[in-house]
């Protein structure tokens, strides 16, 4: 098969994996090697669906012996199949990289032949890249569930990031929809990688020259909407993964109805708005100091699709508002809907020089559209509506029309 055809099939098959981030690793590469990795991450293009293209994201092969119900590549589906060779993947990566098309490689694979054989192919590919081509750009590698951990470990010494996709947010759903990839097969490598990352970072502090193991950390992906878990279960799981498994990122992917399996729900389309809300909530967990249990409670299991989780939280905690921008601490400013880390920092900085009023905030380019309902400036409340939950909700919620446009 021609390389172009393989690329077409195997990038198409990989595109539903949402993680595109390439940030987080640094220190690879010097003046005698090709490439380096940037801490901030770089997008090289944006595809027609508006997503950042940063990595050459492909499957090594989409021939699969498994039959996970939610997956386009499962064994029982009739579709075009292809497989690269390690040499082909290495060549493509290096040639794309040299032309500055990409920031690096994201290599995943279906399980062909058996897990060990598949993992070996991935390992050979990274070995070629690192050792033969002297390529020091970014590599994100999937660990194949069920493969010998020795292979995963060797690959981890050469990759920047590794991930094992959990896919389904609970064991029972996994048992039902992906029985062959039993949960153990996912959590064991995840735990192993997590432990090795930790050992390695301790060892690296002791011995300067110790090689790096997965320096950009570990991530995973959850499919949203293919199984009945609530948003509350999902973000609690994410919080646990961040705290206990030291994951760098959890990605969420709205389930695209790809098969007519009777085990799967019938959806009008992918639940994109729900995916969006989960990302916003995830962001609040990681950068805004929120805890999962603050965002959703046993009485409220799912996010309101019409309003973002931060505004939702504020409306449910109206007693903490409005906050005075001249005195509130940074952490509280961060909790004001419409104020992000940058605006909060600008406010804290500027108010050292003078007492801020609404006009000053505007000049600082703090966007007041949403924040206005939740703040006072030098004691003055600037929104021209009563400070009541129902009214504020109407103001902040996505209008029906706009919401439709998102689907």
């Amino acid at each position, binding site marked *: 098969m021609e390389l172009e055809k393989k690329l077409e099939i195997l990038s198409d098959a990989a595109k539903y994996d949402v993680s595109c981030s390439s940030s987080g690793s640094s220190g690879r590469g010097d003046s005698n090697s090709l490439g380096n990795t940037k801490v901030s991450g770089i997008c090289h293009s944006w595809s027609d669906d508006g997503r950042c293209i940063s990595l050459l994201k492909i499957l090594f092969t989409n021939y699969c012996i498994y039959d996970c119900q939610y997956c386009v590549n499962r064994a029982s589906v009739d579709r075009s199949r292809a497989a690269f060779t390690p040499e082909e993947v290495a060549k493509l990566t290096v040639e794309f990289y040299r*032309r500055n098309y990409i920031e690096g490689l994201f290599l995943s694979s279906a399980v062909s032949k058996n897990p060990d054989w598949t993992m070996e192919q991935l390992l050979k590919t990274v070995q070629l890249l690192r050792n033969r081509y002297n390529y020091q750009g970014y590599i994100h590698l999937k660990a194949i569930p069920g493969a010998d951990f020795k292979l995963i470990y060797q690959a981890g010494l050469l990759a920047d990031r590794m991930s094992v996709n959990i896919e389904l947010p609970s064991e029972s759903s996994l048992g039902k929809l992906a029985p062959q990839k039993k949960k153990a097969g996912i959590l064991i490598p995840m735990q192993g990688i997590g432990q090795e990352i930790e050992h390695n970072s301790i060892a690296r502090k002791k011995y300067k020259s110790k090689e790096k193991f997965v320096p950009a950390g570990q991530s995973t992906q959850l499919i949203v909407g293919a199984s009945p878990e609530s948003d509350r279960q999902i973000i609690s799981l994410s919080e646990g993964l961040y705290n206990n498994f030291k994951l760098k990122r959890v990605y969420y992917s709205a389930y695209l109805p790809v098969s007519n399996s009777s085990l799967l729900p019938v959806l009008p389309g992918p639940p994109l708005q729900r995916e969006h809300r989960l990302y916003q909530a995830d962001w609040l967990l990681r950068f805004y100091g929120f805890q999962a249990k603050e965002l959703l409670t046993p009485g409220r299991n799912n996010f309101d699709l019409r309003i973002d989780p931060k505004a939702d939280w504020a409306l449910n905690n109206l007693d903490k508002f409005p906050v005075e921008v001249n005195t509130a601490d940074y952490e509280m400013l961060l909790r004001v809907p419409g104020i992000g880390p940058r605006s909060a920092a600008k406010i804290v900085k*500027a108010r050292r020089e003078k007492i801020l009023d609404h006009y000053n905030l505007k000049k600082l380019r703090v966007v007041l559209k949403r924040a206005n309902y939740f703040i006072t400036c030098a004691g003055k409340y600037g929104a021209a509506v009563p400070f009541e939950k129902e009214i504020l909700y109407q103001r902040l919620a996505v209008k029906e029309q706009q919401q439709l446009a998102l689907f």
Partner: protein
Amino acid sequence: MAAQKIYIYDGSFQGLLTVLYQLFSRKEIPFAIEKESAYRKNLFYTAEYISNNAQQADFFSDKVKEFISSQALTDSFHAFLADETKVELDIFKYFFMGFKLGKKVDNYLTKDYIRKVQELARRVRSENHRLKGLVRFKESIDGKYYAALAPDNDLLILLAPHFKNRFAVQDWVLHDKKRGKAVIYSAREKDWLLIELEADFEPELSQFELEFQNLWQTFFISVSINNRVNPRAQRQFMPKKYWPYLIENPGSSY
């Protein structure tokens, strides 16, 4: 104080720093500071040409670092690269306040010229960041990698170190078609050089170049998810002005 004058310099940042050195040591406030290439004779103001002087410029930047901050020097350099006339006067005012207030000067965001310097600096850095991704190299017949671009801001000098780190082992050229100049990097010398290069220069391509361009175009089409087409977001992140120099074709997947 003497009548206000227009000061003219060679257009380089070092030249501007020399002018600032002169102004601050003579305690003069300029009416305008202009690049030699942009200066038009003006009946009402006298003009003085100040020639570039490395020692004076270095002395001045040391003072900025000592009494204001190194960030202030970096910000004014980035603002200087912006495609914006009269930025020199804002930089003058920014330093003028800076010498009074020290590094706190950056908090006075309610002053127009302080905000302007910071905003221009941010604009330049953001285009710089964007271009680190959007620059596309083509392999030429003699194995050099050549990229053409036409940035809003004059930022080759910011891009060069990035590509030097990344592509240390290959020879490359970054060609600013808008300004008729280029950075050329030699893998053997491990160093780059700023040269003049006419806008219509085009290298002859290697025999494999088109094959990889094709593969990239194929990849670009197949990664897009069809039922999520979103040209608006695409244009917002990757404005149309950058498309002529891409290899992929936005809009080609649907």
